[in-house]
């Protein structure tokens, strides 16, 4: 299971960055660690501290984190029939349903291996993610002054790093460009946090139509 190992190093790096950026955004070390323990979905966590760091309202921070978490629900739909977990195991499976565990889980050839891939990856990422968040948050809490160390630029680079692998498709690049324009244009006009939420509308508008394919059976909308 090689993806798990290379994924482990990447998870440690994400976690360190997240811990540092969360503290730089004004969260306490326990709050930063609580996000990794209880939210446990990287994109939403980065977004939450990003909105908070930009001076956004708590409601905007929660809403942005939630919107980025919608995809985990879709992963859950994919994984639930494979895992067939019940009771407490189902709650644990739900908590471990993230990009990495679903990617490794769905890539395996047989159902038992899919279950194994999901659980091993989910648990390994959970351990690494929380340990590295704690280290990043504690170290950064001691260093202080985020701008002097360029941590505000690191936050922007972290989002670009999360975005980059999702830009292979042409339509995704169009959505990204549109979202940048909408967010930048709204930033001087509306309270912090809202420009990011408004940019989600670009995805709905551009994603509504089926990509370069005739409607099946000639059914027109």
């Amino acid at each position, binding site marked *: 299971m090689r993806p798990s190992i290379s994924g482990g190093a990447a998870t440690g790096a994400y976690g360190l960055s997240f811990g540092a950026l969360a503290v730089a955004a004004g969260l306490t070390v326990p709050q930063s660690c609580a996000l990794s323990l*209880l939210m446990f979905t990287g994109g939403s966590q980065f977004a939450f501290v990003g909105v908070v760091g930009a001076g956004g309202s708590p409601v905007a921070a929660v809403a942005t984190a939630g919107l980025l978490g919608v995809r985990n629900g879709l992963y859950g739909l994919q994984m639930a029939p494979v895992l067939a977990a019940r009771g407490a195991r189902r709650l644990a499976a739900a908590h471990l349903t993230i990009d990495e565990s679903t990617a490794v889980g769905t890539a395996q050839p047989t159902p038992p291996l899919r279950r194994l891939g999901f659980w091993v990856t989910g648990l390994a990422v959970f351990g690494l993610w929380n340990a590295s968040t704690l280290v990043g948050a504690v170290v950064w809490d001691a260093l202080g002054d985020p701008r002097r160390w360029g941590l505000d630029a690191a936050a922007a680079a972290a989002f670009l790093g999360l*975005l980059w692998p999702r830009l292979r498709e042409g339509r995704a690049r169009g959505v990204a460009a549109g979202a940048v324009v909408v967010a930048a244009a709204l*930033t001087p006009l509306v309270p912090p946090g809202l420009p990011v939420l408004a940019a989600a509308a670009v995805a709905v508008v551009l994603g509504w139509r*089926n990509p370069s394919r005739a409607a099946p059976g000639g059914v027109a909308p």
Partner: protein
Amino acid sequence: MTGWTAVLAACALCFVLKLAGHLLPERFLSGERVSRIAALVTVALLAALVAVQTLGGPSSGPALTVDARVPALAVAAVALALRAPFIVVVVMAAGTAAALRATGAVT
């Protein structure tokens, strides 16, 4: 300082979204448009966060600001195009901004 209320509310919301996927019947996945838009919403939010983190006011100011973060992001983009690992990209961006600020050339 952000309250614990917001932290815990966001955690609860994200867990409910994960759990919903495990509890809803599988036919919800058949909505091809739903999964397509969900993937694109992720792209849109991340791209918007790049823009806001790069151009947003240094603290909570309303105006767009061009400072050391812009060349730092350009360095990050080049590093990503060269397939550098995530931590290298982040450290290079931070180093670029910190170095430019240390010279006093940009804020």
